[in-house]
């Protein structure tokens, strides 16, 4: 799977997505949008990111990882979205073609919680992580953080899909692999892949970050077509 679109495009589309979720108009109906409206709506992006799960970790204050790379620009940082120049959003608005849907998900994991889980229940490891994920993390000095970040990534993808760990889904259906440059990529299989196809997902990107104690992941899915009414597109689209 190739990397996602460049961050600016993804961010602008995400702002439009947030606007669509919070309003009743469809993307194609909205050919003009005032700058003020854009800014106000973009501020709701964080809310949109939270729709996948009621108990939301994003409310917690989180230490920012100073080592975050440009990957983080594609993630759900409200400040980034608010900072989008109006021109960037306008460009997307006036393109005259239907906007892709962008679904985002975020998750934070306490590293110690993951460590304790697998220390106490080693047989669970294989139900959650693939052999490739385990071998990647096993070779790392801070393997526990890497593993926790991968768990967060699985959760983030499932939140973006809006299902959580849905019926018939396995944790191993979302696999994080690293390309040659070390950038994380996501592979979906099984039921998660089936739901992604229902959502007409074309791109998925994740960004991971961890500090001692905490691991965070964001996922962005780019899907074809327009939104249904807010929240009503879960699994109800005609055929996959």
């Amino acid at each position: 799977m190739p990397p996602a679109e460049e961050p600016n495009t993804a961010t602008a589309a995400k702002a439009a997505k947030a606007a669509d979720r919070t309003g009743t108009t469809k993307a194609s109906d909205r050919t003009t949008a005032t700058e003020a409206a854009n800014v106000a709506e973009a501020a709701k992006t964080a809310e949109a990111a939270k729709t996948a799960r009621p108990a939301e970790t994003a409310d917690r204050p989180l230490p920012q990882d100073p080592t975050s790379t440009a990957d983080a620009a594609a993630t759900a940082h409200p400040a980034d979205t608010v900072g989008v120049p109006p021109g960037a959003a306008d460009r997307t608005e006036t393109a005259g073609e239907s906007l892709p849907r962008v679904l985002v998900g975020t998750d934070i994991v306490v590293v110690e919680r993951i460590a304790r889980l697998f220390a106490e229940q080693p047989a669970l490891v294989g139900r959650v992580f693939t052999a490739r994920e385990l071998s990647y993390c096993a070779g790392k000095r801070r393997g526990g953080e890497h593993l926790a970040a991968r768990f967060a990534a699985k959760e983030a993808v499932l939140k973006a899909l809006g299902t959580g760990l849905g019926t018939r889904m396995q944790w191993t259906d979302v696999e994080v692999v690293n390309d040659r440059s070390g950038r994380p990529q996501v592979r979906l299989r099984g039921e998660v892949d089936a739901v992604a196809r229902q959502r007409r997902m074309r791109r998925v990107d994740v960004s991971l970050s961890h500090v001692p104690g905490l691991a965070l992941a964001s996922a962005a899915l780019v899907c074809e077509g327009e939104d249904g009414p807010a929240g009503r597109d879960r699994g109800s689209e005609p055929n996959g």
Partner: protein
Amino acid sequence: MTATADRTDILAIVQEATADALGLDETDVAPDATLLDDLGAESIDLLDILFRIERRSGVKVQASDLADHIQGGIPDEEFGDENEIVTAVGLAHLKKVMPQIDVEKLAGTLAADHVMGLFTVQNLADIVASRAEATANAAR
């Protein structure tokens, strides 16, 4: 062993598993405590709890089964209205899997995404017990 005794045992197993996974005292894990809202369980905790239950009872319940069981196979568009409020049909089913809920009080106000917030330790024990019974019957 009678079915009633089994159910008591299973409740104890569920309480112990929940306490161990969440690092709580077993006395904090009352049958009527809600797993997510009262006890603060998150998805990783649920994974932990369910695997502990599986090891101790031999009954496998996956996190991915829970929401489905609670929604009872009712399609999303019938379970929640256009504002994602649980419909009368949805509530009638919820009353079966979560008998403690006050349907009249929740009518027209229960957000679909808050349903899991009402799920108690006892409700989980009931699911495990009915799975155990189904397995026992199948083996008979």
